[in-house]
């Protein structure tokens, strides 16, 4: 099994998660690398993705696990895939991982996002950090997202926010953008995924 780290730039933010899955299946098929397939009537390559990137977000740190039938040099994976990807998708690195290792989604606990903002948002930041509850609507019910916000800061024209992103819950894209709506000047970027 190999884990690759990917950047999705520019217009790639408009490609939804399921379309990305198909894109990687086709890219892998183009390389002719010995991908492992599932059994059954509709065999598919065994690919395992990290937490879906929200539509409209770019990313510098997406993860994808690829299962192979036999040994493949990770450099070869990286080179062959890189040569057949549409513009705007870049593989940062590929490496072998221990087959019994937990899935990406089981390992990831935290996602860090950043976005360009205009004006002073220090007040907004203190307000968020100082509050015990930030109520949003989920399935027509009140839902407190405050416990999922782990860190929030501004450096220059950029706001950085670390949020919970695991099997027990994560912040939705519109909840994230909603917090800084008036000040946003660009799109959100996912800049890191952490295991703790």
């Amino acid at each position, binding site marked *: 099994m190999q884990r690759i780290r990917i950047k999705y730039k520019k*217009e790639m933010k*408009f*490609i*939804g998660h399921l*379309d990305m899955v*198909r*894109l990687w*299946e*086709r*890219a*892998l*098929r*183009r390389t*002719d690398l010995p991908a492992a*397939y599932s059994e059954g*009537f*509709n*065999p*598919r390559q065994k690919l395992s993705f990290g937490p879906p990137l929200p539509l*409209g977000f770019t990313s510098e740190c997406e993860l994808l696990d690829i299962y192979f039938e036999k040994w493949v040099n990770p450099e070869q994976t990286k080179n062959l895939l890189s040569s*057949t*990807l*549409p*513009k*705007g998708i870049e593989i940062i690195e590929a490496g072998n991982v221990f087959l019994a290792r937990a899935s990406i989604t089981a390992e990831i606990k935290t996602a860090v996002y950043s976005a360009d903002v205009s004006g002073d948002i220090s007040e907004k930041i203190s307000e968020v950090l100082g509050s015990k509850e930030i109520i949003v609507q989920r399935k027509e019910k009140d839902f407190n997202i405050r416990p999922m916000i782990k860190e929030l800061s501004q450096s220059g024209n950029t706001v950085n926010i670390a949020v919970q992103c695991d099997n027990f819950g994560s912040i939705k894209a519109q909840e994230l953008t909603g917090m800084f709506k008036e000040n946003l000047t660009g*799109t959100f970027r996912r800049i890191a995924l952490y295991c703790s």
Partner: protein
Amino acid sequence: MRDQIERILSSVTKPARYIGNELNSIRKPHDNKIKFALAYPDTYEIGMSNLGLQILYHILNKRPDMLAERFYAPWTDMEEKMRENSLPLFSLESWTPVKDFDIVGFSVQNELTYTNILNMLELAHIPLYRSERDGSCPLIIAGGACTNNPEPLSDFIDAFVIGDGEEVILEIADTYNNCRGIPRSALLGSLSKIEGVYVPGLNGLGKVKRRVVKDINTIDYPTSPIVPFIEIVHDRATIEIMRGCPRRCKFCQAGAVNKPVRMLRPEKVIEIAKETVKNTGFEEVSLVSLSSSDYPHLHEVAAELGRYFAPKRISLSLPSLRADTLNEKLAKEMLSVRQSGFTIAPEAGTQRLRDHICKDLTEEKIINSVRTAVKSGSNRIKLYFMIGLPTETDDDIKGIADLAYTLIKEARSISTRAKIVVNVSTFIPKKNTPFENEKMINLEAIKKKQEYLKENLRHKSMELKWHDRGMSTIEGLLSTGTKETGKILLRAFRSGCKFDNWAEHFDFSRWEAAIAAHTD
């Protein structure tokens, strides 16, 4: 403009429809080139599924002195935003306004996309009437199945391609280039001299000789078609193995006008299929034609591709297989990787009517092929029928139900999981077919026949689907229409008609009003 587009894209559904940049899409610098904008007047998902446009895109972009970019009908939310922001319709590749191209070519495959053509011209800020356009506007041309009867569009389109487009498209582009700097009327005069080109008002339609590519093996076939980001209607590699049809079904426009029958050599089919999969990564390859069973090398090609694709988990599909030629060997080759359905088109419910329309199929052959398909693992059988065929009686409608019951019984005796989908469309007379002077049945009659089938096709393993009768009526109006019909079309468009082949948008009452206003 880029910033504006990007901002808008963040607030519309499926923004990927508009961004271009797909694998194998081609972006060339715009300097000193003949700039072609290829359009399909429906959504990205439908337009991208059109094989003809992929071929033309490839042929034009192969020429160093030309470029081709694409655009499709924006969905209504996108259109709203574009109008709100006065943003003109733009191409996918470079986000260039359509009106900045030299030539705009529409692929017209379905009459119910006509209002979209007008809408797209308007969104591109191009005058709808050709009489209102001069050399500062792109040359607007159209080709495709519907140019079999171009008259309803003849006030809006400068020149029509009648027949195969692969060769003539380059002749049109070259003529355009040679006529730069001279008045539009002179360009149109030169275009009207090209074989297969109809220029309304210049050369009479009756005198235009249909353009035919003599040997389809000479076509520079794209083996690196564009791989879409989002799922499209025909999301697979498609190879046209045969053009034209040796059958002579009297209702069929495609068979009647695409003559003679021309075939792609088997080694070429195999080579194109393998190469395309290598360049696209598609998980399915479809060999298409009007009647693939009549392709003499079908077994040989299917066997070789089955062998090559199976270990790669790529499936092979063969739509338009005639029911009487399906055998178990071929069925197995098709189903080597993925389970799929099987489609047959008896078209009529009784032998008498099948004979009358020259559909060369017997009940025995239909039953045998359904048995074969189910035995080979196809559990979903699709049947295609037509109502309203010339000489049809109540017996023929009853025959549809009877045949469907016979088939579901046969199918379920082999597999209890077998299901039958009965698709019922309405006969529409098409120009240049033996039935061109037949009458289409009216709305009431369509309704009566549909109701009968609804009452009499009730089975838990059977599903009945039919075409919207209002849509069929409008399709009939336009397919047999004249220049006058174009005025109704414009009225309908002005009253808000667009995406007429989308159930959620089609508004028959607006069309009725347009027809009534015109006849007043």
